[in-house]
């Protein structure tokens, strides 16, 4: 009898626990994050992850989204597409995430896009959009179109310098390849010639051969397309070779720009995002939105670069706006609602999504900048 009673109590407790767990699960909105926490994209994707954590903490402190707390599930894709497929499958199958707000490893997001699309889960991406139209339907990019980065650099060369020959040095990622193609095709529009295009591996130890080739071809500027420490290596190699070449870097982390600027001084210029030049921004909606995020970021991360983290903040804020507009957490309804969000002020610029535009930033938000005394200065 005693045994029966004990069993009965245990069964009741187990049932109660199961009920509680189910109720809690219902109240949580799960965000899956596939990010390159290690590998070539680590600097950017770790910032993306950290920015999301700040944003989620902020949202939860305000009561969550329509009463539901937000839960982040972060998986490291090691900046490799194969790993990305594994972690996306895990987050769909085991974690049952409601949405993805994933990092900047384009190839990884592309590789996972077919089955994420089949699962009807929206993807808010730091990377460019996947190539297939049926996959684009479920993906939204918070990255500025690649032509903006190229045009910012070409416009500077055309308007402020006499340089008309540029070497293009790019990594093999889809985003970098896209920029490279744009750089080659659009050069003539700025009266610029591209005599040499060279690809590199993100873990290459030395770029002297490529730089020597560009120099021999008469290129007086190098447009570097790609993230990470390789920009610093290029800067050091230019200095070692004693070239007077300008190095024009892509959008990246200030942790890369600072040492590259110290190495090359005014020869190093880079595409800067609004959050990286906050103090120099005029008053307005953009500065206001960055000012909303920046204190929260600095409280946790000090003077770490806020740009990529701010993009992640934007991705979550757009997601929340879509959920509130849809009055639903269901993937298809949230997806439909994102397509209706326009004139949305984020830290990275204004987002204008529509059924035909899934890359939200439609106006060039970038500046060309250099490092002076460890500080970013707009050119």
């Amino acid at each position, binding site marked *: 009898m005693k045994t029966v009673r004990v069993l009965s109590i245990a069964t009741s407790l187990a049932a109660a626990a199961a009920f509680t767990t189910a109720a809690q699960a219902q109240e949580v909105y799960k965000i899956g994050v596939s990010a390159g926490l290690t590998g070539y994209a680590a600097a950017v994707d770790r910032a993306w992850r950290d920015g999301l954590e700040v944003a989620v903490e902020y949202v939860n402190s305000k009561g969550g989204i329509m009463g539901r707390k937000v839960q982040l599930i972060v998986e490291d894709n090691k900046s490799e597409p194969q790993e990305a497929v594994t972690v996306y499958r895990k987050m769909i199958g085991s974690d049952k995430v409601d949405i993805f707000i994933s990092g900047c490893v384009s190839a990884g997001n592309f590789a996972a896009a077919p089955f994420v699309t089949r699962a009807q889960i929206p993807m808010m991406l730091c990377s460019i959009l996947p190539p297939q139209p049926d996959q684009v339907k479920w993906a939204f990019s918070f990255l500025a179109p690649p032509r903006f980065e190229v045009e910012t650099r070409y416009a500077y060369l055309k308007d402020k310098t006499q340089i008309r020959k540029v070497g293009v040095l790019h990594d093999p990622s889809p985003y970098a390849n896209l920029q490279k193609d744009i750089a080659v095709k659009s050069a003539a529009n700025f009266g610029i010639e591209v005599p040499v295009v060279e690809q590199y591996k993100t873990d290459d130890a030395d770029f002297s051969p490529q730089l020597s080739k560009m120099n021999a071809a008469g290129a007086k500027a190098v447009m570097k397309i790609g993230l990470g420490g390789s920009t*610093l290596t290029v800067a050091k190699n230019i200095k070692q070779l004693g070239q007077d070449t300008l190095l024009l870097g892509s959008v990246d982390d200030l942790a890369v720009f600072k040492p590259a600027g110290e190495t090359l001084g005014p020869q190093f210029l880079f595409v800067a995002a609004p959050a990286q030049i906050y103090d120099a921004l005029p008053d307005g909606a953009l500065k206001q939105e960055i000012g909303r995020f920046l204190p929260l970021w600095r409280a946790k991360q000090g003077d770490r670069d806020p740009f990529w983290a701010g993009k992640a903040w934007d991705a979550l804020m757009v997601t929340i706006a879509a959920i509130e507009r849809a009055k639903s957490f269901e993937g298809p309804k949230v997806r439909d609602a994102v397509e209706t969000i326009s004139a949305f002020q984020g830290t990275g610029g204004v987002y204008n999504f529509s059924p035909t535009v899934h890359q939200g930033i439609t106006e060039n938000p970038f500046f060309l900048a250099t490092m002076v005394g460890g500080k970013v200065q707009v050119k």
Partner: protein
Amino acid sequence: MFDLAYFSQTLVNGLSVGCIYGLIGIGFCVIYNASGIVNFAQGAFVMLGGMITYVLLTTLHLPMIVAGSIAIIVVALLGVLIERIVVRPLWDRNATMFVMILATLAVQIVIERTTLILVGDQPKSIPVFTDLPPIRIGGVSIGYQTLWIIGVSLVLIALLALFFQKTLVGRAMRACSINREAAALQGIPVSRMLALSFALSAALGAIAGILLTPTQFTAFNVGTPFAISGFIAAIVGGFGRPFGAFLGGIALGLAQALAVFGLGSGLKNVAALSVLLIFLFLRPSGILGAAK
């Protein structure tokens, strides 16, 4: 039209990076010679050399020579520690080569992750040793750091040759590599030689890291690519031959630079490794022949 200055610059570029590959390759050979072990944590020693120097320069503001020397000693001691707690127990149990490789790969990952936790993921660098404009000969630029790399590499090669041929300890290490049991019967402390080989190899890796970091950057994850290049250098040179590894490194560096010259950097590694593979088909024991 053939550009002689550009071609010469290509050779200098290849030589410079090749010396680094060679130094890392020598590290592989030193341990292999003393123990028959292929240590895949060699890349971690390279990373740590640059990273510890960076930390000492930026936190304690030590002079470069002091920071570099401390880094070399710390990494050498770490090499001994790894030998004591990871390699020795396996060695004593006659673990196979594959187990040893796996163990040293695991060590590489542990060191990477620990570095990531301790110093973060951002790229870091240290200043060049001689901050002067490069020397120009004709149309060729030679940076002072390149001269440091080539010069220190040659000095180390000479010292290693003297060490292995003229000193009792060096000869004892060679004896261990030829026949461990016979060396032990002759009274050579084989296990101590193993520890010493790890210290020497780690120190060589650290020196390579300190030499190359001013020309690029260091981060927690830069070790593996260097380990691969150093391993290729050691094989091409004739595995177990320190000077061969150095030549192998130069061959790899030159092949990569010439591939960029002739074909473009997209095919750099494909072309360079294809050439080296063809070479190994013709001479499988490498440039100097593998050590016995």
